Protein backbone atom coordinates (compact mmCIF):
# COMPACT_ATOMS: atom_id res chain seq x y z
CA UNK A 1 0.00 0.00 0.00
CA UNK A 2 1.51 3.30 -1.05
CA UNK A 3 3.06 5.22 1.81
CA UNK A 4 1.71 2.87 4.42
CA UNK A 5 3.92 1.09 6.87
CA UNK A 6 6.86 3.43 6.32
CA UNK A 7 6.77 4.50 9.91
CA UNK A 8 6.22 1.07 11.37
CA UNK A 9 9.41 -0.39 10.04
CA UNK A 10 7.57 -2.69 7.67
CA UNK A 11 6.02 -4.95 10.23
CA UNK A 12 3.97 -4.93 13.34
CA UNK A 13 1.04 -2.83 14.33
CA UNK A 14 0.85 0.91 13.83
CA UNK A 15 0.35 3.22 16.73
CA UNK A 16 -3.21 4.28 16.02
CA UNK A 17 -4.32 1.02 14.46
CA UNK A 18 -8.05 0.91 14.11
CA UNK A 19 -8.50 4.67 14.36
CA UNK A 20 -7.64 5.31 10.71
CA UNK A 21 -11.19 5.59 9.47
CA UNK A 22 -12.11 8.08 12.17
CA UNK A 23 -9.01 10.21 11.66
CA UNK A 24 -9.43 10.44 7.91
CA UNK A 25 -13.12 11.23 8.18
CA UNK A 26 -12.82 15.06 8.35
CA UNK A 27 -10.71 15.11 5.17
CA UNK A 28 -13.19 12.81 3.43
CA UNK A 29 -16.10 14.90 4.57
CA UNK A 30 -14.70 18.27 3.49
CA UNK A 31 -13.08 17.20 0.24
CA UNK A 32 -15.83 14.77 -0.62
CA UNK A 33 -18.63 17.20 0.01
CA UNK A 34 -17.01 20.35 -1.33
CA UNK A 35 -14.90 19.02 -4.20
CA UNK A 36 -15.89 15.53 -5.35
CA UNK A 37 -19.59 16.22 -5.15
CA UNK A 38 -19.27 19.61 -6.93
CA UNK A 39 -17.24 18.02 -9.74
CA UNK A 40 -19.97 15.39 -10.08
CA UNK A 41 -22.57 18.13 -10.18
CA UNK A 42 -20.53 19.96 -12.79
CA UNK A 43 -20.65 16.85 -14.95
CA UNK A 44 -24.44 16.83 -14.62
CA UNK A 45 -24.65 20.54 -15.41
CA UNK A 46 -22.74 20.02 -18.63
CA UNK A 47 -25.70 17.95 -19.83
CA UNK A 48 -28.36 20.50 -18.91
CA UNK A 49 -30.00 23.29 -20.84
CA UNK A 50 -28.73 26.82 -20.44
CA UNK A 51 -30.71 29.58 -18.83
CA UNK A 52 -30.18 32.91 -20.52
CA UNK A 53 -29.25 34.95 -17.48
CA UNK A 54 -26.76 32.45 -16.09
CA UNK A 55 -27.67 29.17 -14.40
CA UNK A 56 -29.45 26.19 -15.92
CA UNK A 57 -32.81 24.68 -16.70
CA UNK A 58 -33.07 21.08 -15.46
CA UNK A 59 -33.62 19.51 -18.84
CA UNK A 60 -31.27 17.01 -20.45
CA UNK A 61 -29.35 18.43 -23.38
CA UNK A 62 -26.23 17.70 -25.38
CA UNK A 63 -26.15 21.28 -26.57
CA UNK A 64 -23.00 22.20 -24.63
CA UNK A 65 -20.86 19.47 -26.18
CA UNK A 66 -22.54 19.97 -29.54
CA UNK A 67 -21.62 23.65 -29.43
CA UNK A 68 -18.04 22.73 -28.63
CA UNK A 69 -17.52 20.40 -31.54
CA UNK A 70 -20.04 21.39 -34.25
CA UNK A 71 -21.06 24.52 -36.07
CA UNK A 72 -24.72 24.50 -37.12
CA UNK A 73 -24.88 28.03 -38.40
CA UNK A 74 -26.28 31.12 -36.78
CA UNK A 75 -29.77 29.73 -36.33
CA UNK A 76 -28.80 26.12 -35.70
CA UNK A 77 -30.50 24.78 -38.81
CA UNK A 78 -27.57 24.21 -41.15
CA UNK A 79 -25.89 20.81 -41.57
CA UNK A 80 -23.23 20.41 -38.88
CA UNK A 81 -19.64 21.30 -39.70
CA UNK A 82 -16.70 20.87 -37.39
CA UNK A 83 -16.46 23.93 -35.15
CA UNK A 84 -12.81 24.91 -35.03
CA UNK A 85 -13.03 27.91 -32.67
CA UNK A 86 -12.91 25.99 -29.42
CA UNK A 87 -10.74 23.17 -30.63
CA UNK A 88 -8.26 25.81 -31.71
CA UNK A 89 -8.35 27.44 -28.30
CA UNK A 90 -7.64 24.05 -26.72
CA UNK A 91 -4.93 23.37 -29.21
CA UNK A 92 -3.34 26.75 -28.55
CA UNK A 93 -3.55 26.18 -24.81
CA UNK A 94 -1.83 22.81 -25.10
CA UNK A 95 0.82 24.33 -27.34
CA UNK A 96 1.42 27.29 -25.01
CA UNK A 97 1.60 25.05 -21.96
CA UNK A 98 3.99 22.69 -23.76
CA UNK A 99 6.29 25.52 -24.81
CA UNK A 100 6.28 26.96 -21.31
CA UNK A 101 7.15 23.48 -20.01
CA UNK A 102 10.07 23.19 -22.41
CA UNK A 103 11.37 26.63 -21.40
CA UNK A 104 11.09 25.67 -17.76
CA UNK A 105 12.94 22.42 -18.39
CA UNK A 106 15.83 24.09 -20.18
CA UNK A 107 16.29 26.64 -17.46
CA UNK A 108 15.13 24.44 -14.59
CA UNK A 109 17.36 21.42 -15.09
CA UNK A 110 20.71 23.25 -15.00
CA UNK A 111 19.44 25.29 -12.07
CA UNK A 112 18.33 22.24 -10.14
CA UNK A 113 21.60 20.53 -10.94
CA UNK A 114 23.66 23.50 -9.86
CA UNK A 115 21.78 23.84 -6.59
CA UNK A 116 21.89 20.14 -5.78
CA UNK A 117 25.66 20.08 -6.19
CA UNK A 118 26.27 22.94 -3.75
CA UNK A 119 27.44 22.16 -0.24
CA UNK A 120 25.01 21.94 2.69
CA UNK A 121 24.07 25.42 3.82
CA UNK A 122 24.68 27.07 0.43
CA UNK A 123 22.30 24.61 -1.05
CA UNK A 124 19.61 25.49 1.47
CA UNK A 125 19.98 29.18 0.67
CA UNK A 126 19.82 28.66 -3.08
CA UNK A 127 16.79 26.48 -2.70
CA UNK A 128 15.16 29.08 -0.54
CA UNK A 129 15.86 31.84 -3.06
CA UNK A 130 14.31 29.79 -5.84
CA UNK A 131 11.18 28.99 -3.84
CA UNK A 132 10.43 32.48 -2.51
CA UNK A 133 8.95 33.85 -5.75
CA UNK A 134 6.58 30.92 -5.88
CA UNK A 135 5.04 31.98 -2.59
CA UNK A 136 4.57 35.53 -3.76
CA UNK A 137 1.04 36.09 -4.92
CA UNK A 138 0.63 34.84 -8.48
CA UNK A 139 -1.48 37.85 -9.35
CA UNK A 140 1.23 40.20 -8.18
CA UNK A 141 3.87 38.31 -10.09
CA UNK A 142 1.81 38.45 -13.24
CA UNK A 143 1.16 42.16 -12.79
CA UNK A 144 4.88 42.69 -12.26
CA UNK A 145 5.64 40.86 -15.48
CA UNK A 146 3.04 42.94 -17.30
CA UNK A 147 4.56 46.10 -15.90
CA UNK A 148 8.05 45.04 -16.90
CA UNK A 149 7.39 44.03 -20.50
CA UNK A 150 4.77 46.54 -21.60
CA UNK A 151 5.64 48.69 -24.63
CA UNK A 152 6.92 51.65 -22.65
CA UNK A 153 7.93 49.62 -19.61
CA UNK A 154 11.32 49.34 -17.94
CA UNK A 155 12.52 46.48 -20.15
CA UNK A 156 11.98 48.43 -23.35
CA UNK A 157 13.38 51.59 -21.82
CA UNK A 158 16.48 49.67 -20.90
CA UNK A 159 16.81 48.15 -24.37
CA UNK A 160 16.34 51.54 -26.03
CA UNK A 161 18.87 53.08 -23.68
CA UNK A 162 21.48 50.45 -24.52
CA UNK A 163 20.78 50.94 -28.20
CA UNK A 164 20.08 47.25 -28.78
CA UNK A 165 16.76 48.22 -30.36
CA UNK A 166 15.65 51.52 -31.83
CA UNK A 167 11.93 51.09 -31.33
CA UNK A 168 10.21 49.36 -28.38
CA UNK A 169 9.80 45.59 -28.65
CA UNK A 170 6.17 44.66 -28.75
CA UNK A 171 5.95 41.80 -26.29
CA UNK A 172 2.77 42.38 -24.34
CA UNK A 173 -0.39 40.79 -25.78
CA UNK A 174 1.54 38.22 -27.80
CA UNK A 175 1.81 34.46 -27.50
CA UNK A 176 5.34 34.94 -26.30
CA UNK A 177 4.16 37.12 -23.42
CA UNK A 178 1.81 34.34 -22.33
CA UNK A 179 4.61 31.76 -22.47
CA UNK A 180 6.83 34.09 -20.53
CA UNK A 181 4.09 34.54 -17.92
CA UNK A 182 3.50 30.78 -17.62
CA UNK A 183 7.22 30.15 -17.44
CA UNK A 184 7.53 32.76 -14.74
CA UNK A 185 4.54 31.41 -12.82
CA UNK A 186 5.59 27.77 -12.67
CA UNK A 187 9.40 27.65 -12.97
CA UNK A 188 9.90 26.64 -9.29
CA UNK A 189 7.64 23.63 -9.94
CA UNK A 190 10.20 22.39 -12.43
CA UNK A 191 13.23 23.04 -10.27
CA UNK A 192 12.06 21.37 -7.06
CA UNK A 193 11.34 17.79 -8.22
CA UNK A 194 14.44 17.71 -10.42
CA UNK A 195 16.44 18.98 -7.48
CA UNK A 196 15.05 16.17 -5.33
CA UNK A 197 16.12 13.58 -7.93
CA UNK A 198 19.58 15.02 -8.45
CA UNK A 199 20.16 15.23 -4.73
CA UNK A 200 19.69 11.47 -4.47
CA UNK A 201 21.86 10.80 -7.51
CA UNK A 202 24.92 8.78 -6.59
CA UNK A 203 28.01 10.39 -8.08
CA UNK A 204 29.78 7.06 -8.11
CA UNK A 205 27.86 6.48 -11.37
CA UNK A 206 29.49 9.56 -12.88
CA UNK A 207 32.87 8.39 -11.65
CA UNK A 208 32.30 4.95 -13.11
CA UNK A 209 31.30 6.51 -16.44
CA UNK A 210 34.34 8.77 -16.43
CA UNK A 211 36.51 5.79 -15.58
CA UNK A 212 35.06 4.05 -18.63
CA UNK A 213 36.11 6.95 -20.88
CA UNK A 214 32.80 8.85 -21.09
CA UNK A 215 33.05 12.61 -21.36
CA UNK A 216 30.97 14.72 -18.99
CA UNK A 217 28.32 15.58 -21.55
CA UNK A 218 28.06 11.96 -22.66
CA UNK A 219 27.71 11.00 -19.01
CA UNK A 220 24.94 13.56 -18.67
CA UNK A 221 23.08 12.13 -21.63
CA UNK A 222 23.60 8.40 -21.06
CA UNK A 223 23.79 8.11 -17.29
CA UNK A 224 22.48 11.12 -15.42
CA UNK A 225 19.39 11.99 -17.47
CA UNK A 226 17.99 8.44 -17.46
CA UNK A 227 18.54 8.17 -13.71
CA UNK A 228 16.96 11.49 -12.78
CA UNK A 229 14.18 11.05 -15.34
CA UNK A 230 11.43 10.56 -12.74
CA UNK A 231 12.18 14.01 -11.34
CA UNK A 232 12.17 15.55 -14.81
CA UNK A 233 8.83 13.98 -15.68
CA UNK A 234 7.32 15.06 -12.38
CA UNK A 235 8.56 18.60 -12.99
CA UNK A 236 7.12 18.67 -16.50
CA UNK A 237 3.72 17.56 -15.23
CA UNK A 238 3.76 20.08 -12.41
CA UNK A 239 4.36 22.85 -14.95
CA UNK A 240 2.18 21.57 -17.79
CA UNK A 241 -0.99 20.83 -15.86
CA UNK A 242 -1.48 24.22 -14.18
CA UNK A 243 -0.31 26.01 -17.34
CA UNK A 244 -3.06 24.30 -19.30
CA UNK A 245 -5.80 25.73 -17.10
CA UNK A 246 -4.06 29.01 -16.35
CA UNK A 247 -6.18 32.11 -16.23
CA UNK A 248 -4.11 35.04 -15.03
CA UNK A 249 -1.16 34.88 -17.43
CA UNK A 250 -3.24 34.68 -20.62
CA UNK A 251 -5.78 37.17 -19.31
CA UNK A 252 -3.33 39.84 -18.18
CA UNK A 253 -0.45 39.27 -20.58
CA UNK A 254 -2.07 37.75 -23.64
CA UNK A 255 -4.94 40.12 -24.21
CA UNK A 256 -8.08 39.34 -26.15
CA UNK A 257 -6.38 37.66 -29.09
CA UNK A 258 -4.49 35.08 -27.10
CA UNK A 259 -7.33 33.37 -25.33
CA UNK A 260 -6.65 30.16 -23.47
CA UNK A 261 -8.99 27.60 -21.93
CA UNK A 262 -9.04 29.37 -18.57
CA UNK A 263 -10.37 32.61 -20.01
CA UNK A 264 -12.88 30.74 -22.17
CA UNK A 265 -14.28 29.03 -19.09
CA UNK A 266 -14.34 32.21 -17.06
CA UNK A 267 -16.30 33.98 -19.76
CA UNK A 268 -19.11 31.43 -19.49
CA UNK A 269 -19.80 32.34 -15.87
CA UNK A 270 -19.46 36.10 -16.01
CA UNK A 271 -22.56 38.25 -16.07
CA UNK A 272 -25.56 37.55 -18.17
CA UNK A 273 -23.76 36.58 -21.37
CA UNK A 274 -22.64 33.32 -19.77
CA UNK A 275 -23.52 29.77 -20.64
CA UNK A 276 -23.21 27.54 -17.60
CA UNK A 277 -23.65 24.14 -19.26
CA UNK A 278 -21.10 25.11 -21.89
CA UNK A 279 -18.66 26.29 -19.21
CA UNK A 280 -19.21 23.04 -17.30
CA UNK A 281 -18.62 21.03 -20.48
CA UNK A 282 -15.35 22.84 -21.23
CA UNK A 283 -14.26 22.31 -17.64
CA UNK A 284 -15.07 18.60 -17.94
CA UNK A 285 -13.02 18.33 -21.13
CA UNK A 286 -10.11 20.11 -19.47
CA UNK A 287 -10.39 17.92 -16.39
CA UNK A 288 -10.46 14.76 -18.51
CA UNK A 289 -7.32 15.82 -20.32
CA UNK A 290 -5.53 16.48 -17.06
CA UNK A 291 -6.69 13.15 -15.66
CA UNK A 292 -5.38 11.35 -18.74
CA UNK A 293 -1.97 12.97 -18.26
CA UNK A 294 -1.92 12.14 -14.55
CA UNK A 295 -3.07 8.55 -15.11
CA UNK A 296 -0.39 7.97 -17.74
CA UNK A 297 2.12 9.39 -15.33
CA UNK A 298 0.95 7.20 -12.44
CA UNK A 299 1.08 4.15 -14.72
CA UNK A 300 4.57 4.91 -15.90
CA UNK A 301 5.68 5.52 -12.37
CA UNK A 302 4.32 2.27 -10.99
CA UNK A 303 5.85 0.43 -13.93
CA UNK A 304 9.18 2.06 -13.13
CA UNK A 305 8.87 1.07 -9.50
CA UNK A 306 7.94 -2.49 -10.41
CA UNK A 307 10.99 -2.85 -12.64
CA UNK A 308 13.36 -1.90 -9.84
Amino acid at each position, binding site marked *: *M*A*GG*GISSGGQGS*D*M*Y*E*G*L*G*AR*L*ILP*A*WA*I*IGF*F*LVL*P*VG*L*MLIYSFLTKEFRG*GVIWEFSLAAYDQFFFDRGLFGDEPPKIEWTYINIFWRSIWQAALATVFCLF*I*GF*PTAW*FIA*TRSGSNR*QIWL*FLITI*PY*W*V*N*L*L*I*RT*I*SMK*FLIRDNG*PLNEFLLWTGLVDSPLHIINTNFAVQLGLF*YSYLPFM*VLPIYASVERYN*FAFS*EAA*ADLYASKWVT*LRLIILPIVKPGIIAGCILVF*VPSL*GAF*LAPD*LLGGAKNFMIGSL*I*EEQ*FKGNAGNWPFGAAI*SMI*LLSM*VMVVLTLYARAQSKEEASR
Partner: protein
Amino acid sequence: MTRKVDLRRFTGFQAITWACLFMLYAPLIVVMVYSFNDSNSITIWGGLSLRWYGDVFWGPEAEKFKVAALNSIVIAVSAAVVSTAIATSAATALLRAGRFRGKSLSFVLVNMPLMVPEIVTAVASLIFFSAIGFTAGYLTILVAHIVFCIPFAYLPIAARMQSIEDVYEHAAQDLYASKWQAFRLILLPLMAPGIISGFLLAFIISLDDFIITNFVKGAGIETLPTAIFGSVKQGIKPNIMAISTLLLLVSVLFVTLSWLVGRKGQKQ
Protein backbone atom coordinates in the same frame (compact mmCIF):
# COMPACT_ATOMS: atom_id res chain seq x y z
CA MET B 1 49.69 20.32 -12.93
CA THR B 2 47.07 17.67 -12.28
CA ARG B 3 43.77 19.45 -11.95
CA LYS B 4 41.02 17.44 -10.34
CA VAL B 5 38.12 16.98 -12.72
CA ASP B 6 34.88 17.95 -11.02
CA LEU B 7 32.24 15.62 -12.35
CA ARG B 8 29.52 17.70 -10.75
CA ARG B 9 30.32 20.82 -12.70
CA PHE B 10 28.90 21.52 -16.14
CA THR B 11 29.93 24.61 -18.02
CA GLY B 12 27.11 27.10 -18.21
CA PHE B 13 24.95 25.64 -15.48
CA GLN B 14 26.00 28.26 -12.99
CA ALA B 15 25.31 31.05 -15.46
CA ILE B 16 21.86 29.62 -16.16
CA THR B 17 21.14 29.45 -12.44
CA TRP B 18 22.02 33.08 -12.00
CA ALA B 19 19.92 33.93 -15.03
CA CYS B 20 17.07 31.95 -13.54
CA LEU B 21 17.35 33.86 -10.30
CA PHE B 22 17.49 37.12 -12.21
CA MET B 23 14.36 36.27 -14.19
CA LEU B 24 12.50 35.32 -11.06
CA TYR B 25 13.37 38.46 -9.17
CA ALA B 26 13.69 41.15 -11.84
CA PRO B 27 9.95 41.83 -12.26
CA LEU B 28 9.42 41.91 -8.52
CA ILE B 29 12.33 44.24 -7.91
CA VAL B 30 11.25 46.57 -10.71
CA VAL B 31 7.79 46.83 -9.18
CA MET B 32 9.27 47.43 -5.75
CA VAL B 33 11.48 50.20 -7.08
CA TYR B 34 8.65 51.86 -8.99
CA SER B 35 6.43 51.75 -5.93
CA PHE B 36 8.64 54.51 -4.54
CA ASN B 37 8.19 56.63 -7.63
CA ASP B 38 7.00 60.17 -6.92
CA SER B 39 5.06 60.55 -10.12
CA ASN B 40 1.48 60.18 -11.25
CA SER B 41 2.62 58.27 -14.27
CA ILE B 42 3.95 54.74 -14.04
CA THR B 43 6.29 55.42 -16.95
CA ILE B 44 8.11 58.53 -15.87
CA TRP B 45 10.50 58.43 -12.93
CA GLY B 46 9.86 61.42 -10.69
CA GLY B 47 12.17 60.78 -7.77
CA LEU B 48 11.86 58.81 -4.55
CA SER B 49 8.76 59.18 -2.45
CA LEU B 50 6.46 57.27 -0.15
CA ARG B 51 3.39 59.02 -1.50
CA TRP B 52 1.84 55.89 -3.01
CA TYR B 53 2.14 54.07 0.28
CA GLY B 54 0.28 56.98 1.81
CA ASP B 55 -2.23 56.62 -0.98
CA VAL B 56 -2.73 52.93 -0.14
CA PHE B 57 -3.66 53.79 3.45
CA TRP B 58 -5.38 57.17 3.07
CA GLY B 59 -6.09 57.62 -0.63
CA PRO B 60 -9.41 57.32 -2.47
CA GLU B 61 -9.17 53.51 -2.72
CA ALA B 62 -7.90 53.04 0.82
CA GLU B 63 -11.24 52.01 2.28
CA LYS B 64 -11.76 49.37 -0.39
CA PHE B 65 -8.32 47.89 0.14
CA LYS B 66 -8.60 47.95 3.92
CA VAL B 67 -11.84 46.01 3.87
CA ALA B 68 -10.43 43.59 1.30
CA ALA B 69 -7.26 43.09 3.32
CA LEU B 70 -9.24 42.39 6.47
CA ASN B 71 -11.41 39.88 4.59
CA SER B 72 -8.30 38.20 3.20
CA ILE B 73 -6.69 37.89 6.60
CA VAL B 74 -9.79 36.61 8.39
CA ILE B 75 -10.37 34.03 5.67
CA ALA B 76 -6.72 33.01 5.47
CA VAL B 77 -6.40 32.52 9.22
CA SER B 78 -9.63 30.52 9.49
CA ALA B 79 -8.90 28.42 6.41
CA ALA B 80 -5.37 27.72 7.62
CA VAL B 81 -6.52 26.69 11.10
CA VAL B 82 -9.20 24.33 9.84
CA SER B 83 -7.17 22.83 7.01
CA THR B 84 -4.13 22.30 9.26
CA ALA B 85 -6.27 20.43 11.79
CA ILE B 86 -7.81 18.27 9.08
CA ALA B 87 -4.43 17.64 7.48
CA THR B 88 -2.85 16.63 10.80
CA SER B 89 -5.65 14.18 11.43
CA ALA B 90 -5.39 12.82 7.88
CA ALA B 91 -1.61 12.43 8.12
CA THR B 92 -2.00 10.49 11.37
CA ALA B 93 -4.54 8.24 9.69
CA LEU B 94 -2.46 7.64 6.58
CA LEU B 95 0.95 7.25 8.24
CA ARG B 96 0.26 5.96 11.72
CA ALA B 97 -2.95 3.95 11.73
CA GLY B 98 -2.10 0.79 9.81
CA ARG B 99 -4.57 -0.45 7.27
CA PHE B 100 -8.16 0.57 6.96
CA ARG B 101 -10.78 0.49 4.27
CA GLY B 102 -10.35 3.11 1.60
CA LYS B 103 -6.79 3.96 2.57
CA SER B 104 -5.30 4.10 -0.92
CA LEU B 105 -8.29 6.09 -2.11
CA SER B 106 -7.70 8.49 0.77
CA PHE B 107 -4.22 9.34 -0.53
CA VAL B 108 -5.78 10.33 -3.83
CA LEU B 109 -8.55 12.25 -2.10
CA VAL B 110 -6.27 14.32 0.11
CA ASN B 111 -4.15 15.32 -2.88
CA MET B 112 -7.10 15.80 -5.20
CA PRO B 113 -7.31 19.58 -4.79
CA LEU B 114 -3.79 19.69 -6.21
CA MET B 115 -4.65 17.53 -9.20
CA VAL B 116 -7.83 19.23 -10.31
CA PRO B 117 -6.99 22.42 -12.22
CA GLU B 118 -7.83 25.44 -10.15
CA ILE B 119 -10.25 26.85 -12.68
CA VAL B 120 -12.17 23.57 -12.70
CA THR B 121 -12.41 23.61 -8.90
CA ALA B 122 -13.64 27.17 -9.19
CA VAL B 123 -16.37 26.27 -11.68
CA ALA B 124 -17.43 23.19 -9.72
CA SER B 125 -17.65 25.18 -6.48
CA LEU B 126 -19.67 27.94 -8.10
CA ILE B 127 -22.12 25.44 -9.56
CA PHE B 128 -22.37 23.53 -6.30
CA PHE B 129 -22.97 26.58 -4.11
CA SER B 130 -25.57 27.97 -6.46
CA ALA B 131 -27.30 24.58 -6.73
CA ILE B 132 -27.63 24.09 -2.97
CA GLY B 133 -28.61 27.71 -2.53
CA PHE B 134 -25.59 28.83 -0.52
CA THR B 135 -25.45 32.61 -0.76
CA ALA B 136 -22.10 33.61 -2.13
CA GLY B 137 -20.05 35.45 0.45
CA TYR B 138 -17.69 34.87 3.31
CA LEU B 139 -18.70 31.28 3.92
CA THR B 140 -18.42 30.10 0.32
CA ILE B 141 -14.94 31.59 0.03
CA LEU B 142 -13.89 30.07 3.35
CA VAL B 143 -15.13 26.58 2.52
CA ALA B 144 -13.50 26.62 -0.91
CA HIS B 145 -10.23 27.82 0.61
CA ILE B 146 -10.25 25.10 3.27
CA VAL B 147 -10.61 22.44 0.57
CA PHE B 148 -7.63 23.47 -1.52
CA CYS B 149 -5.46 24.39 1.47
CA ILE B 150 -5.66 20.82 2.84
CA PRO B 151 -2.99 19.29 0.55
CA PHE B 152 -0.67 22.24 1.08
CA ALA B 153 -0.93 21.85 4.84
CA TYR B 154 -0.71 18.07 4.47
CA LEU B 155 2.62 17.97 2.61
CA PRO B 156 4.95 19.42 5.30
CA ILE B 157 2.98 17.72 8.07
CA ALA B 158 3.23 14.30 6.44
CA ALA B 159 6.89 14.84 5.59
CA ARG B 160 7.62 15.64 9.19
CA MET B 161 5.57 12.74 10.51
CA GLN B 162 7.39 10.33 8.23
CA SER B 163 10.71 11.50 9.58
CA ILE B 164 9.67 10.80 13.16
CA GLU B 165 10.05 7.13 13.93
CA ASP B 166 7.08 5.66 15.74
CA VAL B 167 9.44 4.22 18.34
CA TYR B 168 8.98 7.35 20.48
CA GLU B 169 5.26 6.79 20.74
CA HIS B 170 5.85 3.10 21.40
CA ALA B 171 8.27 4.04 24.17
CA ALA B 172 5.64 6.36 25.65
CA GLN B 173 3.09 3.59 25.53
CA ASP B 174 5.55 1.23 27.13
CA LEU B 175 5.83 3.84 29.89
CA TYR B 176 2.09 3.68 30.57
CA ALA B 177 0.88 6.52 28.30
CA SER B 178 -2.48 5.96 26.61
CA LYS B 179 -2.69 6.45 22.84
CA TRP B 180 -4.09 9.91 23.30
CA GLN B 181 -1.34 10.81 25.78
CA ALA B 182 1.31 9.44 23.41
CA PHE B 183 -0.17 11.58 20.64
CA ARG B 184 -0.47 14.74 22.71
CA LEU B 185 2.76 14.52 24.73
CA ILE B 186 5.10 12.95 22.20
CA LEU B 187 3.96 13.05 18.60
CA LEU B 188 2.40 16.51 18.62
CA PRO B 189 5.37 18.36 20.14
CA LEU B 190 7.74 16.53 17.79
CA MET B 191 5.44 17.41 14.91
CA ALA B 192 5.30 21.08 15.82
CA PRO B 193 7.69 22.36 13.11
CA GLY B 194 5.76 20.45 10.43
CA ILE B 195 2.43 21.69 11.71
CA ILE B 196 3.63 25.29 11.84
CA SER B 197 5.03 25.05 8.30
CA GLY B 198 1.78 23.51 7.15
CA PHE B 199 -0.21 26.28 8.76
CA LEU B 200 1.95 29.03 7.27
CA LEU B 201 1.82 27.54 3.80
CA ALA B 202 -1.93 27.11 3.99
CA PHE B 203 -2.19 30.72 5.15
CA ILE B 204 -0.18 32.00 2.20
CA ILE B 205 -2.02 29.84 -0.29
CA SER B 206 -5.33 31.16 0.96
CA LEU B 207 -4.08 34.74 1.01
CA ASP B 208 -2.82 34.40 -2.57
CA ASP B 209 -5.78 32.75 -4.16
CA PHE B 210 -7.45 34.64 -6.93
CA ILE B 211 -9.19 32.27 -9.32
CA ILE B 212 -11.40 30.32 -6.94
CA THR B 213 -12.21 33.37 -4.86
CA ASN B 214 -13.14 35.27 -7.98
CA PHE B 215 -15.70 32.59 -8.85
CA VAL B 216 -17.29 31.93 -5.49
CA LYS B 217 -17.28 35.40 -3.95
CA GLY B 218 -20.52 37.26 -4.07
CA ALA B 219 -20.94 40.66 -5.63
CA GLY B 220 -20.37 42.61 -2.43
CA ILE B 221 -17.29 40.93 -1.02
CA GLU B 222 -13.70 41.33 -2.14
CA THR B 223 -10.41 39.85 -0.98
CA LEU B 224 -7.15 41.63 -1.62
CA PRO B 225 -6.32 39.75 -4.83
CA THR B 226 -9.77 40.26 -6.34
CA ALA B 227 -9.71 43.93 -5.37
CA ILE B 228 -6.28 44.36 -6.95
CA PHE B 229 -7.38 42.50 -10.06
CA GLY B 230 -10.41 44.75 -10.34
CA SER B 231 -8.17 47.79 -10.13
CA VAL B 232 -5.62 46.49 -12.60
CA LYS B 233 -8.31 45.82 -15.21
CA GLN B 234 -8.37 49.60 -15.70
CA GLY B 235 -4.58 49.73 -16.04
CA ILE B 236 -1.70 49.52 -13.59
CA LYS B 237 -1.70 52.50 -11.25
CA PRO B 238 1.17 53.45 -8.93
CA ASN B 239 -0.79 52.61 -5.80
CA ILE B 240 -1.11 49.02 -7.05
CA MET B 241 2.65 48.77 -7.06
CA ALA B 242 2.81 49.98 -3.49
CA ILE B 243 0.20 47.50 -2.33
CA SER B 244 1.87 44.72 -4.32
CA THR B 245 5.14 45.48 -2.61
CA LEU B 246 3.47 45.28 0.78
CA LEU B 247 1.79 41.97 -0.01
CA LEU B 248 5.04 40.64 -1.43
CA LEU B 249 6.85 41.48 1.78
CA VAL B 250 4.17 39.74 3.84
CA SER B 251 4.59 36.58 1.74
CA VAL B 252 8.36 36.67 1.98
CA LEU B 253 8.11 37.16 5.72
CA PHE B 254 5.86 34.14 6.13
CA VAL B 255 7.88 31.85 3.89
CA THR B 256 11.05 32.86 5.69
CA LEU B 257 9.37 32.08 9.00
CA SER B 258 8.19 28.73 7.73
CA TRP B 259 11.65 27.96 6.40
CA LEU B 260 13.35 28.88 9.65
CA VAL B 261 10.90 26.82 11.67
CA GLY B 262 11.47 23.87 9.35
CA ARG B 263 15.22 24.17 9.67
CA LYS B 264 15.07 24.37 13.42
CA GLY B 265 12.95 21.24 13.37
CA GLN B 266 15.50 19.41 11.26
CA LYS B 267 18.33 20.22 13.60
CA GLN B 268 16.68 18.64 16.61
